[in-house]
């Protein structure tokens, strides 16, 4: 691979579910000669698209895990991460965006900007990812790229402008007019591989000229030189336009929009040209790391191959030959045989095999330069770990990881399944930080939690298929939480001094609500009333109390435990005595601190024909939902609401029957809110009943 970073593009492809990302990626791989035949996502040939390498993905026609791939187009090397469209797999999208320098936002020419496009756009903005847009499916009935571009401006607030004009639309889509070169581009041959450049059809010349002028007016804001030439009515050089568009795109102030139909093999090569022209190379983007040796001060990574290595492990996969770790290098060179350091664990590891990924196939390489995306074999680490050489200790800024909102019990059917399930859970939790697993000490059940029903469903399915772990699954449960709403004091003595070795410890202090964070322990003991060696025991005792709140058995969060007094016994005090004293103190203070139950609230977006607006709103109201607003899109209306997750089980069926299957919805976690009194009473009653049953 070339050492010139200006020839590297690390890009992501993101969009709303079913907008055709995987189909588009398949075409990119075909035109860049990485594959020699095109297979459709749910094609009749049964092969499935290249990027959907997981069996389950091919079956369902949705991308679950993002697969990385590499290709070359003209003089540039492109690393592509295909990202999942379903909101339950948002962590995959977020991780991809963290390591990518630019992105292609795919939109459907009929559906336009849909709810998931909004989520993805928000994520791109969070990670300051420059983007270009591609309006796909222009061959579909009702295709309207102008309307979609307007939506990009209105709904996503992007300064979006069409760089092309379609030559024909719907089933007459033949090609595009390039408004920069002012030429018509036709995609011919069996697979659209033959590009024919021609003059713009006469009937379109006037409109094309007007659109070019409007485009240049906008683009000239990013180039004084271009503006000057326009004022002087001089001849405009094509490269000058490209440079101005690139400048605006990199500054996140301009979004060039391209059109085509991946399925009909139209517009892909021109999109690849635009990736080359307008998306950043690694040196165009500023990335920061935290210097762990210097109080986590933010430092800019250099992209310089001569500097010490900084690489981020952004994705793990368990393949046939062991764990595969995808890394992005930010400076230095990663070489086969190198010894590198994991900044989090401080452990030294040796790079055995280094490969470049092409979906589930790989190509062995000797080294990779700064700015590249590759995979390492046999490295034990977690997703999000940073690797450096021994000269520095950097950690790439932590990624935003949402809290899981739904959980369910998984029960292995036999011993063999139990062993396999443990292996599977160990791997999945390492791969995906939004997927968690733990054992409920009271019931002995293994509980898994994640971002939605589909998220958990997919992992259960993978457990069965990839690990042969036959499990029974309980009903999905909402991950409730408990927290306190006021300050309360406690003063508890744990005393057991009746024969044998005794136990004694007194702990006094108070509990108070913690605005940010889950738990904080504050030691205000003076004068040694509790010896230093027992302070961690108190912390440990409080910690144990957080596992299960006394109202509903849910995890307790948002509590600051402060100890300011206590007593000990020279002989009978011990670690366990102070742990038990802290547990007693917490229990004493907790109920006085007015605990409440919190539930996850989901941001729900429903899109459907306006005629069903009333019915949909009614269904949201019935579910304790709060309608935030509605957006009128002519014959379509989008409804935005906040609804408790506990009320959303089975909503897809309800929505289907209410709207004759014409509406669709997406949801994502918004916040935790206190449950209403009635629901709280019910949850408390249920927990008491469970406890009394033992």
């Amino acid at each position, binding site marked *: 691979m070339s050492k010139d970073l200006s020839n590297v593009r690390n890009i992501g492809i993101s969009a709303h579910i079913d907008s055709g990302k995987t189909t588009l990626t398949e075409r990119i791989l075909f035109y860049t000669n990485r594959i020699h035949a095109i297979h459709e996502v749910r094609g009749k040939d049964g092969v499935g698209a290249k990027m959907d390498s997981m069996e389950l993905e091919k079956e369902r026609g949705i991308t679950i895990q993002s697969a990385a791939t590499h290709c070359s187009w003209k003089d540039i090397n492109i690393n592509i991460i295909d990202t999942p469209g379903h909101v339950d797999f948002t962590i995959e999208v977020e991780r991809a965006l963290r390591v990518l320098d630019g992105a292609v936002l795919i939109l459907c020419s009929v559906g336009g900007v849909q709810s998931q496009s909004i989520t993805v756009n928000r994520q791109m903005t969070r990670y300051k990812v420059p983007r270009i847009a591609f309006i796909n499916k222009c061959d579909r009935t009702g295709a309207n790229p102008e309307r979609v571009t307007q939506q990009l401006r209105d709904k996503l607030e992007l300064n979006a402008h069409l760089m092309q004009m379609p030559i024909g639309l719907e089933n007459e889509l033949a090609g595009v007019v390039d408004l920069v070169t002012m030429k018509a581009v036709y995609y011919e041959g069996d697979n659209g591989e033959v590009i024919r450049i021609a003059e713009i059809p006469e009937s379109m010349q006037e409109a094309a000229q007007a659109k070019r002028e409007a485009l240049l007016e906008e683009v000239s804001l990013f180039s004084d030189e271009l503006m000057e030439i326009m004022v002087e009515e001089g001849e405009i050089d094509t490269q000058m336009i490209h440079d101005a568009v690139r400048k605006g795109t990199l500054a996140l102030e301009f979004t060039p929009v391209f059109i085509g139909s991946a399925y009909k093999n139209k517009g892909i090569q021109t999109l690849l040209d635009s990736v080359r022209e307008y998306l950043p190379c690694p040196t165009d983007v500023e990335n920061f790391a935290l210097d762990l040796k210097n109080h986590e001060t933010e430092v800019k990574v250099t992209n310089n191959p001569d500097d010490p290595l900084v690489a981020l492990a952004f994705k793990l996969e368990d393949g046939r030959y062991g764990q595969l770790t995808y890394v992005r290098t930010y400076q230095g060179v990663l070489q086969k045989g190198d010894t590198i350091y994991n900044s989090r664990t401080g452990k030294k590891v040796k790079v055995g095999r280094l490969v470049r990924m092409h979906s589930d196939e790989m190509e062995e390489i000797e080294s990779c330069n700064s700015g590249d995306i590759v995979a390492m074999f046999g490295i034990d680490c977690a997703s999000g770990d940073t690797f450096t050489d021994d000269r520095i200790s950097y950690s790439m800024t932590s990624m935003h990881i949402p809290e899981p909102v739904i959980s369910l019990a998984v029960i292995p059917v036999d011993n063999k399944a139990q062993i396999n399930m443990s292996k599977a859970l160990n791997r999945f939790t390492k791969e995906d930080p939004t997927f968690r697993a733990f054992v409920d000490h009271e019931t002995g059940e293994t509980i898994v939690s994640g971002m939605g029903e589909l998220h958990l469903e997919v992992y259960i399915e993978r457990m069965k298929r990839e690990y042969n772990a036959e499990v029974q699954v309980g009903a999905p449960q909402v991950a409730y939480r408990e927290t306190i709403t006021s300050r309360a004091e406690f003063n508890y003595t744990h005393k057991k001094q009746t024969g044998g070795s005794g136990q004694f410890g007194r702990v006094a202090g108070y509990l108070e609500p913690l605005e940010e964070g889950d738990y904080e322990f504050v030691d205000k003991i003076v004068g040694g009333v509790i010896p230093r060696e027992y302070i961690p025991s108190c912390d440990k005792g409080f910690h144990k109390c957080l596992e299960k709140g006394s109202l509903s058995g849910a995890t307790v969060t948002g509590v600051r435990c402060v100890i300011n007094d206590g007593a000990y016994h020279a002989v009978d005090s011990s670690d366990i005595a102070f742990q038990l004293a802290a547990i007693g103190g917490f229990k004493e203070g907790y109920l006085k601190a007015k605990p409440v139950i919190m539930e996850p609230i989901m941001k729900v977006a429903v899109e459907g024909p306006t005629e069903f*607006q009333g019915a949909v709103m009614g269904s949201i109201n019935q579910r304790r939902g709060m309608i935030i*607003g509605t957006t*009128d*899109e002519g014959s379509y209306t989008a409804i935005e609401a906040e609804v408790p997750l506990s009320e959303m089980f089975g909503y897809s069926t309800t929505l289907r029957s209410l709207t004759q299957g014409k509406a669709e919805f997406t949801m994502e976690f918004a916040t935790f809110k206190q449950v209403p009194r009635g629901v709280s009473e019910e949850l408390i009653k249920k927990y008491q009943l469970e406890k009394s049953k033992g």
Partner: protein
Amino acid sequence: MGKEELVLNNPLRALGLEEKAEGNGQSMGLVMSRAGLGKTAILVQIALDSMMRGNKVLHISIGESIDKAKSWYNDILSLITKGKNIENIHEVISEILHNRMIMTFKEASFNQAKLEERLDDMVKQNIYKPDCLIIDGYDFNENSRAALIGLRRFMKEQGLKMVWFSAVSHREDSRKSSDGVPAPCHEVDDLFETVLTIKPDNQNIYLDIVKCASCAVKAGLTLALDPSTMLIMKA
């Protein structure tokens, strides 16, 4: 401090809109200024005052997104509650926001008939019955007097207490009604009980009470607005 104290401490109280928000009467209000001076901020303050009094508000935003309208409410609500020791603040805010629904329309697609149809649907199906309408971005150039009379009739039919509009005035258009209501609303000013205009003066911004029936303030009074928050400044 609870929600009641928030109402009492709201800077907007200086206008004295209690009778309009709590009485049984019906009134139409108008906030006017040149583009970009803060009409939405004033409308949102009026809406929040009404919401805090327990009224249901339907905020109709023409040409803007739900997120934009929502962020106006969040910003102003946090300004009003800032530094106040309110018990169960999250619950209070949640209760206030339950009294709001936002409806957005494209400029070209909004018309009175469409609004009536959507609102009628919601009320009949018992989904949301507003007491107050906020219409931000209404195009007074395109809409005739008849449309506004139609809206007054609709207000009566639906039992709405208040309908507030925003309107853009232009520096180059000096036409005014006899009451001092600037164009483009100078010929429909008799349909509004209250008209407020926002005026910049050097570094300051003022709210002129052009007319205000059943208010605590008299027409002709000028209130100073804090330019950084757009809240009415306390004397």
